[in-house]
């Protein structure tokens, strides 16, 4: 078995943070690839370790090459991709949040924050922003490019 990516100290911190802040269940949907993916294995391990730190988290995994229907359902064409969805009994609440690539460094914090936001079902945006967004009737696609820090 590969050595853990999250050491005991970090794991304990995240466990405590999840314990303190997660409210509703969060469903992670992970798309991986068998071939031509340098980071898929490590990313899968990272997410598995993360899911093990809270009973509010669960994860489904799909092989991109073998799951065209699921890939289409979640509009995924790249791997590794993670969908961070809410869960309401059997219903998945897809807020459109996607992490594509391995979230390391600062992006790992962003991932933890994204999980927390989905779990509390609150974006944390200001009332002014929410007011403006309420009038938006067209789909808006935000792509945030990052590099490991």
């Amino acid at each position, binding site marked *: 078995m590969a050595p853990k990516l999250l050491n005991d100290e970090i794991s304990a911190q995240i466990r405590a943070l999840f314990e303190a802040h997660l409210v509703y269940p969060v469903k992670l949907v992970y798309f991986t690839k068998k071939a031509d993916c*340098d*980071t898929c294995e490590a990313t899968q391990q990272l997410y598995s370790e993360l899911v093990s730190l809270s009973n509010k988290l669960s994860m489904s995994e799909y092989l991109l090459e073998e799951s065209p229907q699921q890939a289409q359902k979640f509009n995924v064409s*790249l791997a590794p991709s993670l969908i961070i969805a809410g869960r309401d009994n059997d219903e998945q609440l897809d807020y459109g949040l*996607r*992490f*594509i*690539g*391995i*979230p390391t460094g600062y*992006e790992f914090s*962003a991932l933890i924050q994204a999980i927390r936001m989905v779990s509390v079902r609150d974006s944390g*945006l*200001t009332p*002014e*922003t929410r007011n*403006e*967004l309420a009038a*938006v009737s*067209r789909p*808006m*696609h*935000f*792509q*945030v*490019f*990052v*590099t*490991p820090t």
Partner: protein
Amino acid sequence: MIVANEFYDLAMRYNVSGVPQTNINENAGVVIGAVPEEYMLQELIKVLQEMTIPVS
């Protein structure tokens, strides 16, 4: 969120020069750097307005 150096083709397609770079509806809006929420909202509003202006 997209890790630019893992998806070089995508980063090239969107001319990623500095990170974080946020593209709204492909290249309709581009924000480079970590900006306040208000600034991001203004960019979104700008993109929306451009969508609704008829091209004559």
